């Protein structure tokens, strides 16, 4: 693993003379390289692009040998936990906004403020909102790789056939129900996926009901059972009206993040719910052209959807050579050759110059996601403060247990809501 094909080729290149230093020292380049490990969760497309970027960086920086490590999202944090316990975290790791606070509080990341002050990391091109989002407990930890927001994906062919022209940026839950039923009448698939078991969708709903921050200062739940009961009733109403696939089908995919399980990909529905940086990936799995809209609004409600960093790259506690790692991180967000390869895959780049360089080369679906991003700016809520530790467990309890119990009719909505609230309180208490 340490003697990968890449490092070997690089060493050969060094001997060939591209690195005068290595030849002058008479040594073998790869033996003296500063090894930097970069660990991310990904998908085949992301992995391909990231390995290409690493190759570019290694080519430009003869003294440093970056090595990539990747697994799927579901295994990522398990592997990271094991590495944290073993004291051998990779130098550079990927993290998401929702989990950051937990990792900051556990002391697994190094703050980047000094590196920024010393000019080792150039953040001048990054939107201030991106910097703010990467700042936790007053220190800057997360270098944002792109901006992201939730999205509603719809099948444009089915929409056209049903003659639907509702504005997808401003539509409401009622609109979604009307559209869904219309599409169903045409004999097509059911109209919309069921969001009963979607923690993210519930988060948006909380924002619309005035609980943009779902947690109090003390790290407890800010909302009561009534909000959750209303949310589940809203989707029950859609389900009972025949706007969604069967409750059993929805329960079967509860808590699964895989794009290929979404109704819009399996053909079970015409509307699915995902993230804006998944638009391109989902299009790759479908025949019909996709359109992108916001998550449905609540009539007379507040904005509930926010823009947030899609992912951060972070410097880990166990980094062996901070300077080399920082040089890599800096290049990852600022080097035009590298950002050109990364494109929009991790989200909309938050550096003005990177965005400008990418724009003329966008594919059709990439243009859809950029246009979507521009369109939502005026309709989003500010970013809620980061969630307290234990939120991942809350999400699992919500999606895989309480919501599934509701879908399968094993519990009444009121009982399931109360049970989840009790469980959530216990989880948050334990995670403190």
């Amino acid at each position, binding site marked *: 693993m340490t003697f990968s094909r890449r490092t070997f080729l690089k060493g050969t290149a060094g001997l060939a003379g591209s690195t005068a230093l290595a030849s002058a020292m008479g040594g073998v380049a790869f033996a003296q390289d500063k090894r930097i490990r970069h660990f991310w969760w990904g998908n085949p497309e992301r992995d391909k692009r990231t390995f290409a970027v690493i190759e570019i960086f290694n080519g430009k920086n003869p003294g440093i040998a970056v090595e990539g490590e990747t697994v799927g999202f579901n295994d990522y944090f398990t592997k990271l*936990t094991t590495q944290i316990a073993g004291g051998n975290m990779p130098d550079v790791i990927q993290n998401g906004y929702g989990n950051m606070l937990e990792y900051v509080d556990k002391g697994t990341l190094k703050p980047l403020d000094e590196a920024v002050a010393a000019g080792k990391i150039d953040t001048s091109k990054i939107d201030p909102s991106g910097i703010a989002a990467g700042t936790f407990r007053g220190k800057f930890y997360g270098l944002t790789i792109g901006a992201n927001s939730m999205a509603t994906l719809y099948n444009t062919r089915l929409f056209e056939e049903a003659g639907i022209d509702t504005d997808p940026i401003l539509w409401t839950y009622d609109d979604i129900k009307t559209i869904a039923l219309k599409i169903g009448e045409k004999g097509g698939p059911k109209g919309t996926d069921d969001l009963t078991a979607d923690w993210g969708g519930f988060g948006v709903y909380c924002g619309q009901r005035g609980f943009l921050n779902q947690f109090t200062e003390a790290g407890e739940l800010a909302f009561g059972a009534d909000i959750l009961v209303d949310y589940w009733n809203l989707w029950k109403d859609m389900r009972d009206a025949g706007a969604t696939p069967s409750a*059993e089908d929805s*329960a*079967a995919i*509860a808590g699964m993040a895989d794009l290929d399980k979404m109704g819009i990909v399996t053909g079970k529905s015409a509307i699915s719910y995902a993230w804006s940086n998944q638009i391109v990936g989902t299009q790759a799995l479908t025949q019909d052209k996709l359109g992108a809209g916001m998550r449905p609004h609540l009539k007379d409600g507040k904005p509930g959807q926010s823009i947030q960093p899609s992912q951060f790259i972070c410097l880990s506690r166990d980094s062996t050579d901070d300077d080399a790692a920082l040089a890599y991180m800096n290049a990852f967000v600022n080097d035009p050759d590298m950002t050109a390869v990364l494109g929009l895959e991790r989200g909309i780049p938050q550096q003005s110059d990177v965005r400008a360089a990418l724009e003329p080369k966008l594919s059709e679906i990439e243009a859809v996601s950029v246009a979507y991003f521009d369109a939502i700016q005026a309709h989003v809520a500010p970013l809620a403060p980061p969630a307290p530790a234990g939120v*991942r467990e809350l999400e699992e309890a919500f999606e*895989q247990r309480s919501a599934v119990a509701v879908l*399968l009719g094993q519990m009444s909505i009121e009982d399931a809501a109360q049970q989840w609230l009790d469980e959530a309180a216990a989880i948050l208490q334990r995670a403190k």
Partner: protein
Amino acid sequence: MNKFIRRNLAGYTFLLPWLIGFFALAVGPIVSSLYLSFTDYDAVAAPSWIGLENYEFMVKDRRFWKALSVTFSFVVISVPAKLVFALAVAMILDRGVRAIGWYRALFYLPSILGGSIAVAVLWRQLFENDGLVNTLLGVVGVDGPNWLSDPRYSLTTLIVLAVWQFGSPMLIFLAGLRAIPQELYEAAEIDAAGKFRRFFAITLPLLAPVIFFNLVLQMIEAFKSFSGAFVISGGKGAPLDSLLFFTVYLYNEAFSYFRMGYASALAWVLLLIIAVFTAVAFWTSKYWVHYENERS
């Protein structure tokens, strides 16, 4: 003493690789997990001693009880079912089937693959909503349920997977059947004993030691069963915790939620449960297992 060391030094030297492995890879972790079970340890900060708190927490932990009940259901149903099935197949093969070697190998195959992830993945695909099983049922006009995502059927599907891996008890049964003297059957036949009579009066009692051996091994294995439930339930015991095997719960507490102390305590409780069940099996064996070289 000196003489003792001199006499055995060579032996222990040869044992050294095993001894090092045993102490470093087995005894060490076991002892440290016992210590960790009395601590609050999140794998990052140093463990802090909390006495019996982890064990006390279990008593009111709803998912702990759920995990126990799922595991017990699995053990209680899958072990006898697997043993009955294994014995039935062994008896068929014992009747001098041609090319028996092939059949033995064939029936043993699922057990070799058994612990592997591949079989669990295969099982998931077979029983998925649009999987082969439901497609075949559809051909005969039956609308099959969601075997894996409906909590009413998920555990049964996993039990069937366990029973299907009947190869190793079957081989042992086959060896046991071969060891039963034929003249007993001949004598019984002369006395006009029917098939059932011969089975209950000769086969079963003489096979008791083998049944006991298989029972204990399979029970321990069933309690520890992990990979099938882990893969089929998406790692979380879904749907609705119906596949929350004790080991899956333990794994999640440790590696999803960073609660290494609690997970260690769970591991010791599982060890204790297995020990008690094995002890009970040994104790009852006095009453139903008879060895040929014993006078009873």
